[in-house]
């Protein structure tokens, strides 16, 4: 199959055969638990008469393989009409014969899975109609994914339990010898005019099981054509009267085809343990199927042993032994108990008893000589010429069956009513037509005889007694072992849950500062036996799986057993989260829920200390802080942030000193700076400026002009609310074209915000006075500061539809207009008005 084992490359594999996934395709999983640590999955694949058993190690590849097959089957069942698989013809010649059915490939493991998988893939590509269905039906991915989860399919579990119970059968069963009586009689169409207990009940002890077969019950045309005869009832009655009187019997089944009838009884004490009774008939007579010849069968299970009784009447005439062989083979192949899935044949039973008028004769001997031997009681020479003995030893018929020594006179053919050999013109040679054979373990023949005193037919009845070992289930032991198996599977199922180890469930960050990111690594190791799909999931009522100052990369993933995944946790406090941390609305504390698909959840606690900063502090709080932010006591900032009316012994600044520092610096050093506010600052500068503002320093403000400009913008952007509060946002936009209205709104702003607004506008006017140096344009500044003064309320930017984008552009224009008024008009009356 492959040039290298185990295969490394695709070239190590070859296409052994290609199986169409059609109506005759079947796939079943069996799981066989060898021992505590090794679990092997068996997959039975059948196609027409070919049966393949694949042994695989559970894992991704197996899951994929089985998933693909089930998917293909689901598709196949949905399709009408059935696919033709014409493309398969080109493989038909090279695909080899199918004689090696049931070939087991132990050790090929994934290799087989791989090559087969490609086979199935190839199928989906080459059959266009299937490919269409593939694209068209979204559900089909479901089975595959579920299997890939490593969840134990319940169907597999059921099979495992059955298998496990079968493995332990000897632990919960014991054998009990039961007496089985098997009788056969060709009654030559006669009614039961005599009692038949001489045949059925001549032994001292009653048998446990009776199987009584008749042939030529009724030779009338009606019986042949309509399969209806009064004889059935008559002979059944005769049998019931003839059964052993020392026991009471329960009828298991009666089956009849024209003249062949089989009755099975068990002693009443066994009746409760008879299960799964089924009967079947096979006609091999005229046209090869009529019921004048053939066989009838009864199968059932007694305790834990399956039994099958077959009564047959094979082709007549001395020279027709090959027809008889053929009839036997036809009965074997066609007798199928179809109420079972898969149907059970004769050979699928622990014990088979075959009785009937098999019609084999004694050939090539002078009839007189035959009769002489018989008279001498010397049967051995005759048996050498018995066709059944000959054919049986050649294994042409009843291969695997046994027959006991024949020590009784031939049972055919007598003048009815006598013990005389056939005196008709035909003067037939006597023969042992009526026989009993058996197959299976634990069967001992105790008697094999004929009953010559019954003379109504041209045949004598024959009977055989057996001591047969029947496996009986010890109910208590069975329950106990069943319990153990269930427990073991429960245990296994729990072991097969996804398992991981996380190297740290308490992730602690150092002091976190504004705009300064910090990362910690986390290792998730798959310590279980199945692939793990993990994901950090949302907690109840949360909108995201983690706080907005935290980033998890990757936040979901897939880990093979024995492998691991590195997760990077990054904390980064920016303008979106800083104000919440300053105000105490949020803390650097989060519990992450790491969820394993189909398994447990692990909580990972993330903590850190946030160092408060003027960035993210509100204007209202900052004006009351006369010292650097970090010098005020812990808690004072929160108090200021959360207070509605600030009570303070000292008068507030008109505007926050931090804004003044930044603006003053720009006023002194940056008015002529080209592209002021347009070029970004350096991150390292920003961190220094942050420290300078938060800690206070006698040194001059660090950083480039552009960095200072960006720090100013960031300071304004990091507040919980923009300068124009959200509640006035839409009012301002509506008024954007009317300077007077805009002014009125600004007049109504809270005092410190109004101050900051006017202070900044005045500064910006100054900046624009130096446009010849810095190259700035009123529109640009208005646009920049419009988005800052009139920051959009949260969530309004989420909508990315074109309609929303259009709206956004219109809104942005209004913001520009609003700010524009204050950049081109003289504001001195405002300032004086204060």
């Amino acid at each position, binding site marked *: 199959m492959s040039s290298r084992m185990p295969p490394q490359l695709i070239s190590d594999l070859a296409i052994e055969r290609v199986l169409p996934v059609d109506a005759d395709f079947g796939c*079943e999983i069996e799981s066989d638990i060898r021992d505590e640590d090794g679990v092997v999955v068996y997959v039975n694949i059948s196609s027409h008469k070919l049966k393949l058993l694949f042994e695989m190690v559970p894992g991704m590849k197996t899951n994929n393989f089985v998933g693909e097959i*089930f998917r293909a089957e*689901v598709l196949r069942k949905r399709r009408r009409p059935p696919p033709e698989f014409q493309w398969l013809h080109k493989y038909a010649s090279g695909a080899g014969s199918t004689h090696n059915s049931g070939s087991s490939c132990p050790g090929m493991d994934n290799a087989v899975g791989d090559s087969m998988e490609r086979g199935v893939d190839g199928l989906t590509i080459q059959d266009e109609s299937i490919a269409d269905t593939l694209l068209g039906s979204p559900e089909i991915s*479901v*089975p595959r994914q*579920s299997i890939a989860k490593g*969840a134990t*399919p*319940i*169907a*597999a*579990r*059921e099979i495992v*339990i*059955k298998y496990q119970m079968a493995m332990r059968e000897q632990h919960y069963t014991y054998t009990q010898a039961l007496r089985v009586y098997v009788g056969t009689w060709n009654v030559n169409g006669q009614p039961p005019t005599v009692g038949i207990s001489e045949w059925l009940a001549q032994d001292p002890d009653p048998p446990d099981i009776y199987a009584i077969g008749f042939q030529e019950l009724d030779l009338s045309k009606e019986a042949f054509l309509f399969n209806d005869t009064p004889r059935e009832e008559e002979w059944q009655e005769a049998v019931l009267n003839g059964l052993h009187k020392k026991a009471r019997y329960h009828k298991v089944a009666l089956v009849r085809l024209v003249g062949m009838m089989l009755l099975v009884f068990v002693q009443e004490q066994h009746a409760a343990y008879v299960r799964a009774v089924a009967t079947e008939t096979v006609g091999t007579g005229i046209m090869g199927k009529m019921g004048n010849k053939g066989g009838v069968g009864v199968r059932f299970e007694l305790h834990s042993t399956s039994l099958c009784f077959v009564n047959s009447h094979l082709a007549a005439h001395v020279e027709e032994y090959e027809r008889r062989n053929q009839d036997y083979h036809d009965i074997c192949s066609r007798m199928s108990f179809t109420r*079972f*899935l898969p149907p059970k044949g004769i050979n699928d039973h622990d014990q088979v008893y075959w009785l009937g008028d098999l019609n084999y004769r004694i050939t090539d001997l002078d009839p007189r000589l035959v009769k002489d031997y018989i008279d001498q009681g010397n049967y051995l020479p005759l048996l050498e010429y018995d066709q059944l003995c000959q054919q049986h030893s050649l294994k042409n018929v009843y291969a695997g069956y046994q027959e006991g020594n024949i020590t009784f006179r031939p049972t055919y053919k007598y003048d009815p009513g006598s013990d005389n050999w056939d005196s008709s013109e035909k003067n037939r040679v006597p023969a042992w037509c009526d026989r009993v054979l058996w197959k299976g373990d634990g069967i001992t023949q105790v008697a094999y005889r004929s009953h010559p005193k019954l003379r109504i037919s041209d045949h004598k009845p024959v009977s055989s007694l057996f001591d047969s070992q029947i496996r009986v289930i010890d109910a208590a032991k069975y329950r106990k072992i069943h319990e153990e198996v*269930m*427990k073991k*599977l*429960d*245990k296994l*199922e*729990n072991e097969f*849950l996804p398992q991981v180890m996380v190297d740290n*469930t308490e992730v602690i960050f150092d002091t976190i500062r504004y705009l300064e990111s910090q990362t910690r690594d986390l290792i998730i190791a798959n310590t279980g036996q199945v692939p793990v799909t993990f994901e950090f999931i949302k*907690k*109840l009522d949360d909108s995201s799986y983690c706080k907005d100052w935290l980033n998890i990369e990757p936040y979901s993933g897939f880990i093979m057993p024995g492998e691991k995944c590195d997760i990077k946790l990054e904390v980064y406090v920016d303008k979106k989260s800083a104000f919440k941390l300053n105000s105490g609305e949020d803390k650097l504390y989060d*519990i992450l*829920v*790491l969820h394993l698909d189909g*398994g*447990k*959840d*692990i*909580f*990972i*606690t993330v903590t850190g200390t946030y160092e408060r900063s003027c960035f993210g502090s509100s204007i209202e709080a900052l004006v009351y802080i006369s010292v650097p932010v970090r010098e005020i006591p812990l808690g004072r900032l929160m108090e200021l942030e959360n207070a509605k009316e600030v009570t303070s012994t000292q008068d507030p600044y008109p505007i926050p000193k931090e804004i003044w520092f930044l603006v003053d610096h720009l006023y002194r050093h940056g008015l002529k700076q080209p592209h002021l506010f347009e070029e970004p600052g350096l991150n390292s500068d920003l961190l220094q400026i942050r420290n300078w503002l938060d800690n206070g320093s006698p040194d001059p403000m660090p950083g480039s002009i552009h960095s200072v400009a960006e720090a100013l913008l960031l300071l304004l952007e990091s507040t919980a609310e923009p300068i124009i509060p959200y509640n006035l946002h839409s009012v301002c936009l509506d008024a954007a074209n009317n300077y007077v209205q805009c002014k009125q709104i600004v007049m109504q702003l809270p005092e410190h915000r109004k101050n900051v607004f006017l202070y900044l506008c005045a500064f910006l006017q100054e900046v624009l006075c130096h446009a010849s140096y810095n190259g700035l344009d009123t529109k640009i500044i208005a646009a920049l500061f419009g988005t800052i003064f009139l920051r959009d309320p949260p969530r309004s930017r989420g909508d990315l539809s074109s309609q929303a984008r259009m709206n956004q552009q219109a809104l942005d224009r209004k913001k520009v207009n609003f700010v524009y008024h204050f950049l081109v008009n003289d504001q001195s009356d405002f300032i004086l008005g204060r």
Partner: protein
Amino acid sequence: MSAGPYNYSYIFKYIIIGDMGVGKSCLLHQFTEKKFMADCPHTIGVEFGTRIIEVSGQKIKLQIWDTAGQERFRAVTRSYYRGAAGALMVYDITRRSTYNHLSSWLTDTRNLTNPSTVIFLIGNKCDLDAQRDVTYEEAKQFADENGLMFVEASAKTGENVEEAFLETAKKIYQSIQDGRLDLNAAESGVQHKPSQPGRNTLVNDQQVNKDTCAC
């Protein structure tokens, strides 16, 4: 082939709750593995266990969520109450504080589960009778007053562990039979799955999974 006698027809979701260190994980382990876990680490998260049991001839798959008991996780573990058919509320008979907190656990359970959720109170560590800090009678009275089922159990010896899980299932099954528990309700904590032989069952099972995995 008879129709899948080993299939389960129901899935019941259980949660195990209670203070840290009362032995919730050990009870789960004892129930699923029949073993006592001597050095059980604190549960950091929610452990998951399953076992198939039989009630009135019906195979029932128990899906058991064992929650972290630490107070700091309380807010998070509340997410797991939803859709539980059974809640095993555990305290430690040798630590009175764990008993005193029961009313708070009960409040959470009542608030976050259905009226039909069966709550079973377990006084764990009954093997340590010498160190007993909560009398049986007192806890029994608490259980009666609040309409809870109650046993004292030992995850160490296994005493009453099986009983607690099974009695809870019986009660839930009764509720289904009586019609008090509506299987169609989204958060009943019970899934019904008619048994079918062969591979159909596999498909069915996956559909069940699919339906419930939308959380």
